[in-house]
């Protein structure tokens, strides 16, 4: 039994324990990068966004966190949040392999918030804004590529 089941969890708000697991997994999936001068997904504004967004899929999230914590107990004998940073990765691998759906719930939540952070978008060469109203530019491309196809005879099948 993991810490969430022990605390008789009510499946509403995220508990302190759950928040700690979520923070730990966010830092594990996307750690900070010196090379790209990027924060981790556990960085304060990004993690606040993750917590705020998590209200939309609470029941799936409770389950995913609980399953992850179970895997941590099975593989490493302790809860996920208590693990050292390096020992979280092998636990994560087992979790992804055996529980891909729950892993996807956590990964999606984390990347949804990480990749809309201003700093992250700018680092990718994007403007930190919504697509509308300004939109984007897409080049026309080389339409002469169509020349060989234009030379082809009609090949749709005649119908009786």
């Amino acid at each position: 039994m993991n810490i969430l089941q022990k605390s008789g969890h009510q499946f509403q708000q995220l508990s302190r324990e759950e928040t700690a697991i979520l923070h730990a997994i966010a830092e594990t999936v996307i750690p900070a990068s010196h090379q790209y001068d990027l924060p981790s997904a556990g960085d304060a504004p990004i993690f606040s966004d993750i917590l705020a967004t998590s209200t939309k899929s609470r029941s799936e999230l409770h389950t995913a966190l609980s399953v992850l914590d179970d895997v941590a107990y099975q593989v490493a004998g302790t809860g996920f949040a208590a693990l050292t940073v390096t020992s979280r990765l092998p636990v994560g691998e087992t979790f992804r392999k055996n529980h891909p759906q729950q892993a996807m719930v956590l990964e999606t939540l984390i990347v949804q918030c990480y990749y809309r952070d201003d700093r992250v978008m700018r680092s990718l060469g994007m403007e930190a804004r919504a697509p509308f109203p300004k939109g984007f530019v897409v080049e026309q491309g080389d339409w002469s590529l169509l020349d060989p196809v234009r030379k082809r005879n009609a090949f749709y099948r005649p119908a009786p």
Partner: protein
Amino acid sequence: MTDEPIDVLIIGAGASGAAIAWSLVETRMRIVCLEQGGNMNPLDYPSAGRDWEARTSSDFSISPNARNLPSDYPVNDNDSPIKVANFNAVGGSTILYAGQFPRFHPSDFRVRSLDDVADDWPIDFATLEPFYAQNDHMMGVAGLAGDPANPPRPSIDMPPLPLGKAGQAVAKGFNSLGWHWWPSDCAIATRPFDGRERCVNLGTCVSGCAQGAKASTDITYWPHARRRGVELRTHCRVREITVDDQGMASGVIYFDSNGREQALKAHVIVLACNGIGTPRILLNSKSTTFPDGLANSSGLVGKNLMFHPYAAVQGVFDEELDGYRGPHKGIQSQEFYETDPSRGFVRGYTFEYSRGLGPVGTAVTGLSRNRIRWGEDHHDSYRKLFSRITSLVALCEDLPEEHNRVTLDPDLTDSNGIPAPKISYTFSDNSLKMLEHAVARGTEVLKAAGATDTFSISPIDFSGWHLMGTARMGTDPARSVVNEWGRSHDVKNLFIVDGSIFVTSAGVNPTSTIQALSLYIADQMKQRLANLFD
């Protein structure tokens, strides 16, 4: 509320309901459309906010079960490997559609004669051709005449969508193999059209076009139809069609925006609720005269459900492509469209290319395909994919099989207590062979285009966006639900105009054909007004 019957009652304000409402308005009949959803406000679309990608899995999900909005009804699709995708609002599923707008080929109407499978349609390509053209002008289509894979056309209203870097790469791949490709017909304005702005490459077509460039019917047909007098009542959900002693449809019972049960009488009823919503209403309309549901003496209401099985092949390139910029669609290939017995399956498929992915979409795809890793490697592995993925999706023709069907779920209901639809569907061997062929050929194209890595998803589960066949058209009342001009064989004042009436699915996106059929049926009704019920 007056008891005086209205002339024409249309149920559903999506692609087909909008088209028939507009076409019939010139008759000066009193036309009312009941729609369970509301009017959309483009400024509420995800693309106007920073959380635009996240909202595609919540209130703008393509799945009605995930959205679960008051306008949605649940669909039990547990017994189907393809999950249903739709949208319920004025504009219907065109609010979310990608706007790929091809026509059927002439051979698609003669499947039995040519390939000895399924059935021929009771109408042919030539019958629909003028209505395809009329519909293209109303919706506004961008494309290029001269495609050797399709019958010739004089011209197309707007120039094609840009090739972009991704389209160019894929086009080179097709060229190096000597295979066909062509700019897709797309219902997206590439220049101002009928009061609509041109596309500014938001890249969010399947979560609503805030720019108003994509032709959803709330901004194409509906403004014209309403201005000319069609009454559109929103947040009105029809439970059942009622019948009189003569076995004619007499009206409907529906729930209004306050959840109150209402009755509305009509001389003519038109169903336009799509391939799932329409059989659901018919099956819910049981009476002593029609104990198995309305218009169901053939027993075929709900049967022969066709989706289009889809496969996707994604290619990763070293150079930067279009990424999050630009409409999803742009070019297509019909190299493998017509039957070639040497391939081991009958009929065929269209390759559509799917331009690129947003930053979140890239991460989700990369993680699920094990191309992006957790931990320190995350950033480098992410950057190898960001703006460097483009895809080909294969849309495979699905053939009708009676065991693929819509029934009523014995337990599940919507928020008004109306029984919800249940889907039972399995892939045919023919479809599985076609999907396999498509993945192999799609991989070849992307490799020839320069992809350094490819991966595929086949079949795609959330691809039940084309809903067809569940109230098929035909001349024989024992083998079809409506006749060759859309009128029920059993109930002479009941018409169906959505994808339910398809006899076969062809290997292309259906909406231009659904709307052409709707306009054709409207035209038939106008020509027969004096003896419509004979």
